[in-house]
């Protein structure tokens, strides 16, 4: 009997792995169709500079979407990612410009501010049992207000911190391989993606993230301190929003306190287009990256083709539905 069990195990294990790779390749389908379509429609689309522009445009939304992915996998939702990003940018501005601290401290302050806000959201959700939608909606408003209060409703500029714009706009890669001047913002996105992916798939925190979304009560009855892990996930997501805050501040060379609301829907859309389920328990960072890319390509392509703005919106809406529909079809078949 035991030999029978092992052979069965072996063959069955091979099958899902193959179809897994298959899966991922096909997940690119909508993205590839879009890229090919726009390339044919406009010769300007596939130029290096435009590809870099698309990647750069993906970076902020991509990082926010990764933060949202973590929370969504636990079965929650995070509406505060956009204004939290702004809040972190403002904190960074206060530390660097108002207090005149050196650059690394500003970076740390932004990330810590994000972590602190995430910790609050997580505590509201885990300890006070406020539904994630409300806890993060409340945080969204609180952070929006606080950004205005702290900044004095004025943008904070980073002119006194030379090198700050390098965080998103410089190109370390380009300094080494001049042919590929990938902006640092994109590099940061990839590093965040790799780290988040690693955490999700290889660490206990990642495993608990999935377990929370899959069956929180079962996890609790397994003797796991679910509250603590949930707060940890929100805190991690918050600190990733801090990184997004650095990116946007660096790109705009300023912390714009009024910006950020509305970004949460783009981020969540990227997550869902990327195949993460809003009911929790499943999701991948790679999917989210693809989702964010699909949105950036779509917007860029429509603009390059000079489609009238009102029609851009209509087309974007339709393609988002279509992309997810195709993804559903594919998954049902496999």
């Amino acid at each position, binding site marked *: 009997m035991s030999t029978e069990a092992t052979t069965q195990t072996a063959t069955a294990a091979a099958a899902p792995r193959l179809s897994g790779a298959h899966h991922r390749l096909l997940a690119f389908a909508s993205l590839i169709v879009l890229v090919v379509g726009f390339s044919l429609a406009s010769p*300007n689309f596939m130029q290096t500079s435009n590809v870099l*522009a698309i990647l750069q445009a993906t970076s902020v939304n991509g990082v926010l979407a990764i933060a949202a992915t973590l929370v969504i996998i636990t079965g929650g939702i995070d509406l505060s990612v956009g204004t939290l990003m702004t809040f972190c940018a403002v904190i960074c501005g206060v530390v660097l410009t108002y207090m005149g601290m050196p650059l690394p401290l500003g970076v740390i302050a932004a990330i810590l501010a994000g972590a602190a806000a995430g910790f609050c959201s997580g505590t509201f959700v885990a300890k006070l049992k406020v539904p994630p939608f409300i806890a993060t909606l409340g945080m969204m408003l609180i952070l929006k207000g606080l950004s205005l209060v702290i900044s004095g409703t004025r943008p904070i500029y980073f002119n006194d911190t030379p090198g700050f714009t390098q965080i998103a706009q410089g190109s370390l890669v380009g300094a080494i391989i001049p042919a590929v001047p990938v902006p640092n913002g994109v590099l940061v996105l990839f590093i965040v993606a790799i780290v988040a992916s690693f955490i999700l798939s290889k660490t206990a925190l990642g495993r608990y993230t999935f377990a929370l979304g899959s069956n929180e009560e079962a996890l609790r009855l397994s003797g796991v301190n679910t509250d603590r892990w949930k707060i940890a996930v929100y805190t991690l997501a918050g600190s990733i929003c801090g990184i997004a805050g650095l990116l946007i501040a660096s*790109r705009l060379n*300023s912390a714009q306190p009024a910006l950020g609301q509305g970004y949460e829907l783009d981020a969540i859309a990227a997550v869902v287009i990327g195949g993460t389920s809003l009911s929790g328990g499943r999701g991948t960072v790679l999917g989210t990256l693809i989702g964010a890319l699909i949105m950036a390509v779509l917007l860029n392509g429509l603009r390059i083709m000079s489609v009238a703005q009102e029609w851009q919106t209509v087309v974007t809406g339709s393609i988002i539905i279509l992309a997810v529909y195709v993804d559903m079809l594919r998954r049902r078949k496999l």
Partner: protein
Amino acid sequence: QDVYVPLISKGFQHQFWQAVKAGADKAAAELGVTVTFEGPDTEAQVDRQIDMLAAALAKNPQAIGFAALDSQAAIPLLRQAQEANIPVIAFDSGVDSDIPVATASTDNIAAAALAADKMAELIGGEGKVALVVHDQTSRTGIDRRDGFVNRMQEAYPNVEIVTIQYGGGDHLQSTEITKSILQANPDLKGMFGANEGSAIGVVNGARELGKTDLVIIGYDSGAQQKQAIRDGLMAGAITQNPVGIGYETVVAAVKASKGEAVEKNIDTGFFWYDKSNIDDPEIAAVLYD
């Protein structure tokens, strides 16, 4: 009796509105009255503005400053103000009604036409230009767009407007839009950003793509725009006098509340500024950071 004047504006968080607020606060301090300043998140939220106006009226103020997002939509409440003998001062782009006792505003159409003149001059009277506007439906967005476009079409037949896109005044979104426009039109000669966020977006986009030969014209001021003009990234910009708008509005409101006569139309004016005159005292006075 304490004089209280609420100002209901079109926006709150943007620097332009903060400058209007600063002007209003200044007048309030000088005249010893209380003002409050409120505005919706975006210029599309007409009903939110109406709710704000309703709450302001409930406070029985001595006068009200109002920058209508849509004049018609506000008429019932304005009538209510009239019946309660609360004088209304229109500011920014004015109210289509005879209820306001005074209007402190900028002629956005004329201002944008001036921007078109400058643009045509700087690109040599021919070539392609594009616009990044903050809003497709709000009064200021429409006026600045139409003012610019109509002037171009009437006076400069050799200038082609290739595209007009809208970025909500969001710096980042306007940056991405600019980059797409520049990708699609490598031979573009000039771009007009119709408010502060749009203008900064255009500057950012051009800089990120390393496009140095583009003529950029902005609108309003703010530290970044001023810097861009000093650095030569931006050719120049139109500025209104937001501090003046806020100041004059409150002054007129206080007068009206005391039953004194007020000037019906207070034109706060607009100015072209560039590297050459940015430090002139009369220009510096209407710019904000």
